[in-house]
């Protein structure tokens, strides 16, 4: 797909904002005596920065090889952590999700997902190979794996959203009442408790929203090179 440049720019800015927010969470959680899931926040920080560079040239940061090493190491870390805490369903789901996110990013950096060099929209046009006016950007290696990842990411986004409960007026007091049980599942469905705060999670729903946004942007980045 030859995605419009404004959309790619907008999504890149969104990813950078998300990375900045995750950094802010990492820095502020302890000072505010709130718990946060440091692993997920760190992953969102790195994934946000990487994803921005994958869809817009101006957001490029590290070389592809460096990002590949970072996310390969992250994937191994999450995999080991997932195996060690396999008995706890909440932690397991979160850690497996983190590992899967790293695996997708490793694929993206090694398979050639990158900002499109084409400009303008092909909306409504047939892009047939060898035809005049054809605008097609299919430079992805292993496109079948890319398609599987894109579909998997879409399902992951739906699954996270489906687990998110609506916010109610009782959420604050209820969460405060459950504070102290570090590692518990928050009212918004985000698991965590890796921090050393009071047990009161720092804006858990926003983590879910970040998770959904990252997953969608990664799927978008793959699809722009695939279809």
């Amino acid at each position: 797909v030859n995605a419009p440049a404004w959309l790619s720019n907008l999504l890149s800015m969104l990813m950078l904002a998300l990375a900045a927010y995750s950094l802010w969470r990492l820095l502020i959680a302890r000072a505010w005596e709130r718990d946060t899931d440091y692993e997920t926040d760190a992953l969102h920080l790195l994934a946000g920065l990487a994803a921005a560079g994958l869809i817009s040239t101006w957001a490029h940061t590290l070389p592809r090889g460096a990002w590949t090493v970072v996310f390969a190491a992250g994937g191994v870390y999450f995999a080991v952590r997932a195996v060690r805490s396999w008995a706890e369903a909440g932690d397991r789901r979160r850690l497996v999700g983190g590992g899967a996110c790293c695996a997708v990013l490793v694929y993206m950096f090694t398979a050639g997902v990158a900002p499109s060099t084409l400009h303008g929209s092909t909306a409504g046009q047939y892009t047939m190979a060898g035809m005049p006016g054809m605008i097609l950007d299919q430079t992805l290696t292993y496109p079948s794996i890319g398609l599987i990842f894109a579909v998997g990411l879409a399902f992951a986004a739906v699954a996270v959203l489906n687990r998110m409960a609506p916010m109610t007026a009782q959420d604050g007091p209820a969460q405060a009442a459950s504070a102290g049980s570090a590692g518990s599942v928050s009212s918004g469905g985000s698991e965590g408790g890796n921090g050393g705060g009071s047990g009161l999670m720092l804006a858990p729903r926003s983590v879910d929203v970040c998770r959904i946004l990252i997953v969608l942007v990664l799927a978008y980045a793959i699809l722009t090179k695939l279809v």
Partner: protein
Amino acid sequence: MVLFALVELAIGFGIAWPPAVKPALIACMVWAPFLWFFAEGLGGLASGSASAFTGAPGASLLYGLLAVLLWPTERGGRSEATRFVGTRRAQAVWVVLWGLLAGLAFLPANTARNAFSDAISGNGTGVPVWYGSLLDHASAWTAGRGGELAVVFGLALALVAVSVLLPWRRAVRAGMVLALLLAALIWVFGEGFGMPFMGMGTDPDTAPLLAVLALAFWPSRRPIAEPAVAPEAGIVEGAAA
């Protein structure tokens, strides 16, 4: 195009988020006919060559149909699809849909010698090597056999259509399995996975929706108890049938 994508993302995520399910389903019911008419050209039904193998009756129609059949309700039923509209109406929808697909298989354009072969080879542009090879083999095998394959395909679709009326749960399940198998064959060979590799795919096409429909009609092991007093008499008549 971006606007279309955003609308569809909003509908999809609305359905995924429990508090927004009903508004999103209503939006789907409004959006689907619009797409079916303007973007899908009635799923090709008016063309004289529409075939279930190549995407008839149109994905939008199936999205709308699923939005109605899977409307959230507390009512019981023999399957998910029968809970809201009732058993008879759901069965009627199934029979009409799959019966229509069976009928289309016998159109002259679809019984031509190379009807299947041409449809399969048309999906080969830009695809990965392994998939292109699979399509090449399938295209070569079906070349010149369009008439025979159309009869087999049409009869299989007709079997699926009537299976839902059978009184034995195992027979109904066999029909659903056949429906799933046909959906898989249609998706891989007829629809090219919705043509994502050709730069012109906008949706996964009809086959995954036919599969979802079959799963929605999958008979439960034991019927969920109907409520003693039904809130809406008009719907209960069908639900109790």
